[in-house]
């Protein structure tokens, strides 16, 4: 992802248009640049603390208590939201919803732009969203909005996000919370 959106609809992922690929293990992606995970975490915290209406979008893998990691991550997401002064809007279901979602309280991967437009969200974190729906949602957000997207993925990451953090497990989330606290103190927020 070389630029912040709205980039207009494109059927291709940035991997094809901008030649951006997911980061290798231990690294992160900051726009189209490979950086250390700590640098990316710092930039992510900065974006969340400085842009309007920061929001965390937890997906089913965090919302539901289906394993021990999910239980830990739920607590960490709550703490992270407090540190970043962010709102939490859940992505609890991937099915399209008729007649329309309530963008105040939910986000749907098939039209995530509705929630982002409605709440004027300028920075967001995706966490616990299954890869295929994260890819769809991030691509739509990039196409339709100027929201700064951060993907915290427990697998290989999502190149369509502006910051991609890969292999994010409870230990990495703890690290991110600590970095967010430091950045918050530096910014005097």
């Amino acid at each position, binding site marked *: 992802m070389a630029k912040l959106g709205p980039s207009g609809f494109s059927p291709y992922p940035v991997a094809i248009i901008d030649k951006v690929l997911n980061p290798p293990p231990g690294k992160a992606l900051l726009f189209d640049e490979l950086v250390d995970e700590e640098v990316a975490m710092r930039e992510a915290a900065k974006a969340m603390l400085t842009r309007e209406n920061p929001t965390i979008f937890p997906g089913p893998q965090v919302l*539901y*208590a289906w394993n021990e990691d999910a239980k830990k991550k739920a607590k960490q*997401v709550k703490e992270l939201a407090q540190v970043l002064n962010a709102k*939490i*809007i859940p992505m609890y279901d991937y099915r399209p*919803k008729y007649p329309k979602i*309530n963008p105040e309280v939910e986000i749907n991967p098939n039209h995530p732009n509705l929630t982002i437009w409605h709440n004027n969200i300028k920075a967001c974190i995706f966490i616990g969203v299954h890869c295929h729906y994260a890819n769809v949602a991030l691509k739509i957000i990039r196409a339709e909005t100027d929201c700064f997207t951060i993907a915290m993925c427990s697998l290989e990451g999502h190149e369509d996000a502006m910051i991609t953090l890969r292999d994010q497990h409870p230990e990495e989330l703890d690290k991110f919370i600590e970095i967010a606290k430091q950045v918050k103190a530096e910014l005097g927020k």
Partner: protein
Amino acid sequence: MSFKVYQINPELKDVMPQEIIDLEEKSTLNNPKRGVMDLPFYKELIEEHSLCAGCPEAAALRYIMASLPNPEDTIIVNSTGCTSLVFPHIAMHTVHSLFGNQNAVASGIKRVLEYRYPDRVKDVVVLAGDGATVDIGLDCTLQSFFRQEKITTICFDNEVYANTGGQESGMTPKGHVFKMAPKGKQFEKVPMWQLAIDSGCKYVARLTVSSPKRVESVIKKAVYVARYLGPTYVHLYTPCILEIGLNSDQGLEEMRARDKERFEFFEYITPEAQEVIDRVKAEGLL
């Protein structure tokens, strides 16, 4: 299926909408005694749908979803048609097959599930329209009956290809005129329930969905008999109110009228199916 996928992490419960909390707290999953009488009190497996307002098929789907004894371990196989517009919105496992192939796909799924989960009960239910079941998919439907596959087949008969503008189907009664069948149907309606009996179904029923309790009873019998014995077939009349020129509040009236004629309640039970039904009744599940 693990029920943990419905347990919301307590830390994030405050951000979840009430309807999703209801899905966990007022769920009838893991309760084989569930039925249509629970409909007003629990979060349904189907709630919002994209069918026309007042469509009897939506009511039929609602009653069926409420009546399935084992929804958490039930796989629904559906086919192209109005019903397939609903399946993306229901909270159950569904497989959309190629038009007409639903019974063949269901047979494969059932066999694999029996192999993969020998110690768990997994029901496979086919839900398809009359075009998929009787016209285009008749071969696959009957072959699955001949093979004695342990699946339940439910046909939603609206007597027309409604989704594509009103072409006549094999289930259209003789003489009926539709937008794309201006000369009227030239031959009789296919007696699919009779074909099902002749092809070896253990339990066959024909009815309209005017009575929710009756639908519940029929669906439960069909699922239990299929689980223990072999193929079962349920033929439901779900009229397309648009194609027959009715208003959205007239579907029930239409079904009640047909209850007295060509969709008069009819049930065929083999002696061994009756034994299964009696046993399930004794357990208080029917």
